[in-house]
């Protein structure tokens, strides 16, 4: 029993991290096809928004997190208006522009807030089970990540807004000829993506060191999870994160973290090669049988 819970915790923790790292990018890269190398910086904005409002305005943590998300949405909207909207349909150019944005943002944070900012304490406590003790917050994160995914799945796959958004992004010409305000849809979707990345930063801020490069810790995991998820990100994200999490946890368990990292990268290479439409492709294919 203790052993099983232990496994669940380790695996779930890895799953939560991959999922939460990926959610913002799933919208912006998975759906909108913008290779957002500034994804890490969105997370940083969310993290700093949370921590600064918690420290400076003394907001209780949940409100500080909401503040962090709102700040990131505003940041995303500004970015969209001045830079991103010129990059739709030009995925490879978005690499350069977003890399430039990432440089500007991370360095600006360094200049404004200094190389380090005082952190927040992790909320909730811990409990003991057998010879192990667990952080309650991290268990909360596991369930919250799954909950967010469920919400997103519902939003983008079941609501009319979601269907509209997906259709417009897939074929903007036809959508606009049917009277859809394409610009609006793009902007809103991008803002959602930005807000989600900000949420990631807000959620993980109390567990990590607050430095301008905090977002960098998520970016590789985010990209590989979104790519493994495949063409329909909200269908494939959970299976992708589960698969990658399993690979990483088990390899790290038997060997060491470095090999775990290498294993997860190799897993992605193999998925791309042998399962080009990712896990969502696999699921949709099996479902249609």
């Amino acid at each position, binding site marked *: 029993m203790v052993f099983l819970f232990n496994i669940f915790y380790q695996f779930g923790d890895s799953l939560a991290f991959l999922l939460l790292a990926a959610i913002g990018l799933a919208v912006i890269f998975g759906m909108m096809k913008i290779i957002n190398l500034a994804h890490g910086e969105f997370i940083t904005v969310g993290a700093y928004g949370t921590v600064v409002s918690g420290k400076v305005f003394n907001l209780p943590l949940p409100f500080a997190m909401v503040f962090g998300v709102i700040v990131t949405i505003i940041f995303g909207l500004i970015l969209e208006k001045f830079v991103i909207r010129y990059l739709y349909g030009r995925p*490879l150019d978005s*690499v*350069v522009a977003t*890399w430039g944005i990432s440089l500007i943002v991370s*360095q600006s944070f360094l200049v404004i807030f200094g190389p380090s900012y005082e952190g927040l304490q992790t909320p909730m406590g811990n409990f003991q089970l057998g010879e192990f003790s667990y952080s309650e917050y991290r268990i909360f994160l596991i369930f919250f990540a799954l909950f967010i995914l469920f919400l997103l799945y519902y939003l983008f796959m079941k609501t009319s807004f979601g269907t509209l958004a997906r259709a417009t992004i897939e074929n903007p010409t036809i959508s606009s000829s049917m009277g859809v305000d394409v610009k609006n849809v793009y902007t809103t979707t991008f803002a959602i993506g930005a807000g989600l990345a900000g949420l990631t930063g807000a959620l993980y801020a109390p567990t990590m060191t607050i430095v301008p490069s905090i977002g960098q810790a998520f970016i590789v995991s985010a990209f*590989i999870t979104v790519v493994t998820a495949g063409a329909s990100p909200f269908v494939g994200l959970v299976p992708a994160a589960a698969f990658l999490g399993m690979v990483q946890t088990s390899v790290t368990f038997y060997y060491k973290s470095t090999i775990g990292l*290498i294993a997860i*990268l190799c897993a992605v290479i193999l998925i791309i*090669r042998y399962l080009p439409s990712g896990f969502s492709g696999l699921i949709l294919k099996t479902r249609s049988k």
Partner: protein
Amino acid sequence: MKDNYKKNKLQIITFLILGALPLFMDSYYLDNISYFMCWTFISLGLAVIWGMGGILSFGQTAFFGLAGYGFSVISINFLGVAGVSLWSVILALLLTGVFGLIVGYFLFYGGIYDVFIGIVTLAITLVLETFMQQTAGPEYVIGTARLNGFNGMQGMPIIGFEKIPFGLVEGVTQYYFILILSILVLISLYRFKSSKMGLIFLASKEDRERVSSLGHNVQKIQLIGFTIASVLAGISGILYTNWGSYITPDSMGLVSAALPVVYVAASGKKDFFSVFIGCIFFVWLSQTLAINGKQFAIIVMGLILVISTRFFPDGIILMLKNKLIEKVKWLQS
């Protein structure tokens, strides 16, 4: 021949100026320009696969590092053997080319396209970096050469001829060697571009299926282009290792992988000469900003990138080059 001269007046003048610089500049500045020129080959390689073939690869730095390490390992193992520095360069480049062939085969014959190539090549680069970083221990040794992990490798010989007292040590010899090599590479690349294979490669960027249905072996040509790019990246890797007598896994990190992409895109990926000049310019710019701008250096670099994609999507340097040729009638053929 005269035709070539007419069409390439700007390029010829540029190289004449570059060739004359050692008359005015002292060794530090020459060395610095040699250093900037080291980076042009990896960028030109990317211009081949991305500019010509539309294939965005983050793997150039993997080949950069592989060649640098290959050169170091081979030459350290055979230190003292006649001509070691030279044939270890050749061996290292061969090794890099083979690796490029393998990766390219996996990509193109495995049906991996578009953005996925970027992800796979990035993953490969990161795997190499992650692995190399932890090779500090004594068990990570190839022959007599310890990989030394994160702290990097030293002690490789300078590229040169032992009997003849000129090596690529520093100063004028290194400068002219790299300059002449650049000219040769550029000429070869332009030849490639206008060759039948080059044209098919260019066409494959526009419409892969159509080109393939016309009977051309697109995958083979993409593989060739990719291998050329990998060897060019390898040249940069070896020249850099020689310049600083040092190579580390850092050169294969996320930032290092993105840099060639950034230089090439901002310069003008469709034109080799623009990429050559642009690469030198951007490396110089980022160094100058680091010296003078300190905190704001990186912000300025970022702004330049954003502005160039937003307003000059074909590349700032290419745009400037075209404007220059437009204005100065004499430069036109």
